[in-house]
């Protein structure tokens, strides 16, 4: 905290981050940028991911009354939309959309937190620091996807009647009342894999670690990986789908399915969705 520090490193501090090229295999701190690709054509809407997330991340079961109050804590939710021009019947089925924290690169939630409880990690994740959170809920207001969930109740004391606490994942904290939480891409798994890889002087291999939802998904609709590694499946998918992490309008062919939700708001999400396909002639 000195003026010399400010002056010497001014251009560094003034650099927009994550800056272009921050994620680079050769850099010491940014070898990872976790990203997802989610194929809506093969997502069946079965909710296995949701339940897996409950199991992995110690999500409380809130019960009917609190669910009705809007206090549900599902970090990943499956949305079901009907087509807008649906006639009498939904003849093309339903549209299922698994929605979790999009781990935006320019996350609207990050800038507004008064205490800096939510910020960007070097892995390109949008982290949530439960200890720092004071519960102003501004991040939730500014989240366009509304995927942040606030602990309106003291769930640790109510949501797990004994012996259910025995099931809790010791790698993940149980959140108390008054703080915000959200999908972390199962950061506990990522950190474990990273430190394991570091002890072996290597990077995390593609497919070595996946979040609980990806692991559970019966149709393997979700692909997860390190987008910095050009050989990872997720990086190849992004490239193949002509979706660029740092563009808000993708210039892509009509036949290409990749897109990101609410890109026009410029949050630069890390989750690419692949369009639902329907055989219009059927």
């Amino acid at each position, binding site marked *: 905290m000195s003026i010399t520090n400010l002056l010497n490193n001014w251009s560094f501090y003034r650099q927009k981050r994550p800056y272009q090229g921050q994620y680079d295999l050769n850099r010491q701190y940014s070898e990872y940028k976790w990203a997802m690709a989610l194929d809506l*054509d093969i997502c*069946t*809407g*079965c909710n*296995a991911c*949701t*339940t*897996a997330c*409950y*199991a992995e991340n110690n999500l409380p079961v809130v*019960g*009917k009354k609190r*669910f*009705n109050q809007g206090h549900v804590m599902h970090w990943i939710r*499956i*949305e*079901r*939309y*009907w*087509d*807008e021009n649906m006639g*009498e*019947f*939904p*003849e*093309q*089925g*339903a*549209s*299922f959309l698994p929605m979790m924290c999009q781990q935006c690169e320019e996350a609207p939630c990050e800038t507004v937190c008064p205490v800096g409880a939510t910020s960007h990690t070097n892995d390109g994740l949008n982290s949530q620091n439960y200890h720092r959170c004071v519960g102003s809920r501004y991040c939730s207001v500014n989240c366009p996807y509304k995927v942040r969930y606030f602990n309106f109740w003291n769930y640790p004391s109510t949501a797990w*009647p004994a*012996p*259910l606490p*025995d*099931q*809790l*994942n*010791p790698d993940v904290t149980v959140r108390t009342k008054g703080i915000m939480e959200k999908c972390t891409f199962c950061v506990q798994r990522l950190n474990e894999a990273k430190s394991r890889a570091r002890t072996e002087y290597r990077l995390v291999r593609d497919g070595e670690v996946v979040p*609980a939802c990806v*692991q559970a*998904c*019966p*149709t*393997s*609709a979700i692909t997860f990986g390190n987008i910095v590694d050009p050989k990872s*499946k997720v990086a*190849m*998918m992004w490239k193949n*789908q002509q979706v660029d992490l740092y563009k808000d309008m993708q210039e892509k062919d009509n*036949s290409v*399915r990749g897109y990101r939700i*609410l890109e026009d708001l410029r949050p630069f999400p890390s989750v690419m969705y692949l*369009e*639902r*396909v*329907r*055989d*219009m*002639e*059927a």
Partner: protein
Amino acid sequence: MGRVREGRVLKMEGNPESKISGGKICGLGQAAVQVQYNPDRLTQPMMRVGDSLQPVSWDKAMALLEEKTGPKSGINGNEFAFMTGAMSGHLKVLVQNYLDSLGSKNHFVYEALSPAVSFAANKQIYGVDMPRLHFDKAKLILSFGSDFLGTGASPVHFAKEYAKFRKAPRGTLIQIEPKMTMTGANADRWIPIIPGTEGVLALGVANQLLKHDDFSKTVPADIVNLVGKYDLDTVSSITSVRSDLIGHLAGLLWEKSPSLVISGASVEGHVHGVQNAAAIQILNRILGNVGKTVDGQAQSPFPQLAPATGSFASLKAMNDGMGAGTYKAVFIYGANPVFTTPSFMGFRDNLRKVPFKVAFVNAVDETAEECDLVLPIYTAVEDFGSHVAWYQPEGVEITMQQPLMDKLYSDTRSMGDIMLDLVKQRRADEYKAWPNFFSYLKTAVTNIKPAVKYTDTDEHFWYDTLSHGVIHVDAPQQQIAENFSTEMLDLPTTVNSPDPKFPFYLIPSERHYFRDGRHANCGWLQESPDPLTTVVWDSWAEIHPKTAASMGIHEGDYLEVSSQNGTIKVKAYLFPGIHPDAISIPLGQGHESLGRFAKGVGVNPFKILNPVFEKNTGELAMFGTRVSVKRTGQSEIVVKDEGPVSTQMGRKLVVTLPADVAQLSKEI
């Protein structure tokens, strides 16, 4: 598989070595830990004292068992009945052996949602219970009410297969059913139909196909003649499906070959369920799919381990026996018939007539409440066991179940141990080599060694098996026949006139995580929104918005849904994916017992089912009940995840791309 920390199992995961699940897991499998740590789990034996169940010690409980069913009790085989849910593997062998030791043949396998009609139809047509289905080879799947993604044999496996089917070259899925299931929601085309008329539609499509010489030579002339009755107008008026669609379906089937035509529970749960299924399967024959996309499963070399899937007939036999006072003792394991039987059966009253009833449970359910002795057993994560699934995609897979943790409660016991003890009551000498079920299972599994051509020692084989969790046995494929006869296809050609007193078709729909309701006491499952309605923690009646508007029904209005056999009061949910003449209520809720998460949540539509039976098999026709619907004037918010709107409101959230534009083959 599961993750264990400090002696506690924390999370269930799929076994990547399984050919069935491929390392994936559904919500139901995840919930196993919630069964394990359920706050309402039974932790000690209970014995009936007067009107209530009181805790007793195991010694006393076993002494009572010995007294009532032991060799000295003088019970004979006909006076004893053992009801189990679907079971397979070595526990099934042990149960069989116990019954043998008693000289009893009364092993009643009962599943409320059993595939018995489907098996019967397949047996008639293909000569096997269940053919193997090749989704990945099909270009078009025409599914008549088969919710393979949500329920049925193995949603996880079929979801995996479905994913392959949707990869390039992308197959087309057409779903025809009265109420949209999860599979219907994923179909390229979803066609609503009057319940029970699916077979007629299939014959209508067959009729269109058989007009062409290419197809007419595939089936005998008498069938061609029979099918000829089902012309477009007749079929359309019976099924409520537009006649141009029938021709369209025929055209698609012709165009996209090979295809796969399958039927599901909503087709089979009718009086003419087998005919319906057969009428649908004949499309496979006409289109030449048999042998391409419909194939035989592997022939299991271990018939004694093969699964018993249960039937309504066995329930009925047991119920009749109890009603007649035949049985002096009844054991119930893995089934909850008091909850799942319709009220017309009077199962609860009949059960009360039996002098000695024993239930083996994890948590006290409606059936256990009626029993004289309730024994707490290990959950799946505490116990050893072996299972064989009834749908085997590749070879035969024996799944090994092994404890992930020590028992949570000292006063619970392994079902296998109890069975072994019971067998030893009469055959102590034969079984003395095995002090417990573990040793029995180890010996039994080791005996499989030759079949898998394992060359190392027995000990190695055992540990190898445990570490992999599955045993793959290569087995020859079953040969499947193709027997179609005119009797099997004889479906009514007249419009089914509705009963004015009961104008609605009741669809007791199977929810993908609830099935027959045995796991309704898991909070995760209660809070997991139903995929299509997103309702949680409740029951609801799905009704088409058009019908609702004509009756003045709004979402949340309490409806009285009455059949001849009873009335249930349930909230309305306006659901466009249902035939306007049908009303659908999900199964699995409405428990009167089973602990805090299940008790008093929702209603139980099993109870109002009418005594309508499938005429070939005697199975209960689940979809054959007609109901009337009345508004009660009361109303309550439907608790659901969905907000006030159910469309994307012009946002680009889920984008749909026409299949002919998409170039899936270029994707990674």
